[in-house]
């Protein structure tokens, strides 16, 4: 992209030079290219070009094409226009999946957005043993998601002897059906997902906090701002960029949530945890309808691309060098 050209230090001379005699320029250009390491550059680029062509660029283009073709498992694929899209858009399950995904994203923000920020601001104040706090906060993140999900499934045991039910019974609550209830399943999944991911946000905020200039706090203190006022008027405004980045990152992630609902509930009970990605999975790998699956992927991607372009701009603004 354009940025790379701008930030590049003065390039080494390469390729045909302006002063070369016109007749021999082409030949000279080629030998120069050869001797100057042009072939080496091609060879070094080859692995990336091949891997990206096969497993990134190719599938993206193919996905675009497949969304307007019949799925082609039995008969050869042919152009069907917007048929896949209209099939997907009229699927009675689609509104459920969209609402569930939005609900997941919203709950994930409510559970998991303010807490890491608070923890990071607090951790930054620790002068001793901060590593104990950061390690404890980050520990759940290194737990493989499948392990975390299967473990939390046991915690959510709906019998009165289940771990959470037994714990809540000591304060006179429950027993709750957790994952078996259409209203509780989604919050329960989000709680487990938040547990598994909040730690990395803490670390990212902590890294950003170390970039807040000390003079700002000193100035605020001299102006008589108390501790809370300094957090409110110095720390938070200074972190505004990172907060936006994390917000977008979390939205992009939660819109594509799959493993948690897939393993926790399989989309049930009564489709209460059916997300868009689960629907895509079902279209493609249960029904074998690749056309519908790619069409829905594409629709979701339009939303995600908007979010990720916003994200790219946000990081660019936040990065100190830009």
């Amino acid at each position, binding site marked *: 992209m354009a940025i790379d050209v701008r930030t590049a230090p003065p390039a080494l001379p390469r390729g045909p030079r302006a002063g070369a005699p016109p007749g021999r320029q082409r030949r000279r250009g080629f030998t120069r290219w050869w001797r100057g390491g042009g072939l080496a550059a091609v060879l070094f680029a080859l692995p990336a070009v091949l891997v990206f062509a096969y497993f990134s660029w190719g599938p993206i283009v193919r996905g675009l094409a497949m969304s307007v073709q019949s799925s082609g498992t039995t008969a050869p694929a042919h152009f069907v226009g917007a048929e896949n899209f209209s099939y997907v858009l009229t699927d009675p399950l689609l509104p459920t999946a969209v609402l569930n995904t939005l609900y997941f994203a919203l709950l994930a923000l409510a559970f998991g957005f303010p807490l890491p920020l608070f923890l990071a601001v607090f951790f930054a104040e620790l002068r001793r043993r901060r590593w104990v706090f950061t390690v404890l906060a980050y520990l759940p993140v290194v737990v493989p998601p499948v392990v975390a999900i299967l473990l939390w499934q046991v915690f959510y045991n709906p019998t009165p002897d289940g771990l959470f039910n037994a714990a809540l019974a000591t304060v006179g609550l429950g027993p709750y059906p957790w994952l078996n209830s259409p209203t509780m399943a989604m919050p329960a999944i989000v709680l487990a997902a938040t547990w598994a991911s909040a730690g990395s946000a803490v670390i990212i905020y902590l890294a950003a906090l170390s970039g807040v200039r000390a003079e700002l706090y000193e100035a605020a203190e001299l102006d008589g701002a108390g501790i809370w006022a300094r957090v409110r008027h110095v720390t938070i405004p200074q972190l505004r960029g990172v907060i936006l*980045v994390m917000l977008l990152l979390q939205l992009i992630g939660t819109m594509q949530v799959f493993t948690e609902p897939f393993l926790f509930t399989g989309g049930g009970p009564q489709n209460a945890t059916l997300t868009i990605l689960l629907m895509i999975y079902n279209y493609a790998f249960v029904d074998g309808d690749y056309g519908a699956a790619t069409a829905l992927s594409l629709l979701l991607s339009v939303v995600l691309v908007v979010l990720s372009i916003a994200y790219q701009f946000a990081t660019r603004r936040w990065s100190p060098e830009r």
Partner: protein
Amino acid sequence: MSTPPSPPALQVPPVRAGRRPRRPAEPDERSVISTADRRRPSVRIVLVGVQTLILVGLVVAGLGPLLWLFKAALSTSQDILRQPFALWPSGIQWDNLGIAWTRARIGFFLRNTAIVALGSWLANLFVSVTAAYVLSVLRPRWGPLLSGAILVTLFIPSVVSLVPLYLTVLDLPLVGGSLLNTYWAVWLPAAANAFNVLVIKRFFDALPAELFEAARIDGAGPVRILVSIVLPLSRPILAVVSLLTIIASWKEFLWPLLVLQRPDLQPLSVALPQLTRTAELNVQMAGLFLALLVPVLLFLVFQRQFLRGVGMSGGVKG
């Protein structure tokens, strides 16, 4: 991480090390609460109170589930179900671990996970380093084009290519053949990682260009410059990228589930959910515990690199 000669600074300030020697009176980096504040008893009491509260919360929430899993891994199924908070009322069942390791084949699946992770790591590093080297050091005229094409994939969510990628693996275009049920099906797509190319390229950009020029004048070819100059200087970034890549592939679930359908190839993350249908609860718990052990130990050993890598990934991405 060993310190190579004059490593270029990382783009994003690293997480502050917990115990850096500082002057006792006024620390050189201050935060919201100043040293003067900290002398006030009211501030000190609140700070200690909040600190204790948060520490207790973190121990319960962060460490608690893992400790419980350790307990459950050594309990009978009845104890796990009936008395989740009792410490081994029927005695410690060390056998669970052995049964899980051999009969539930946790060891075998763990080996598969390691194969998946190491292969993805190697493929990833090879592709990312060579690409970054082309874009940052060799700088051909078509470099910006390649760099743009790689960058664009950062904007495009992986969902778009999930199904077509699966079909690609099923039947490779042009060369033919199928990668299904081979580890290449996991390794190669993992290698197409624009984020890693970008991070490594940025690091290479910050290396002093005079070094390459001097080496070139001394007659070093591009391979030599990469191996003897660029790579040794880049150990910090390679360590961070390596850790992030290995962890990411260790966690992967959906993609190996799709392309590694033969049970004897499956990594632990794919095999564990099936265990819940076949094994007893205590063996399941022992299996989960064993699955957890490697990443947790890795994290505890390499904490600083981990936390630095995560701190970077938020800022450098894009």
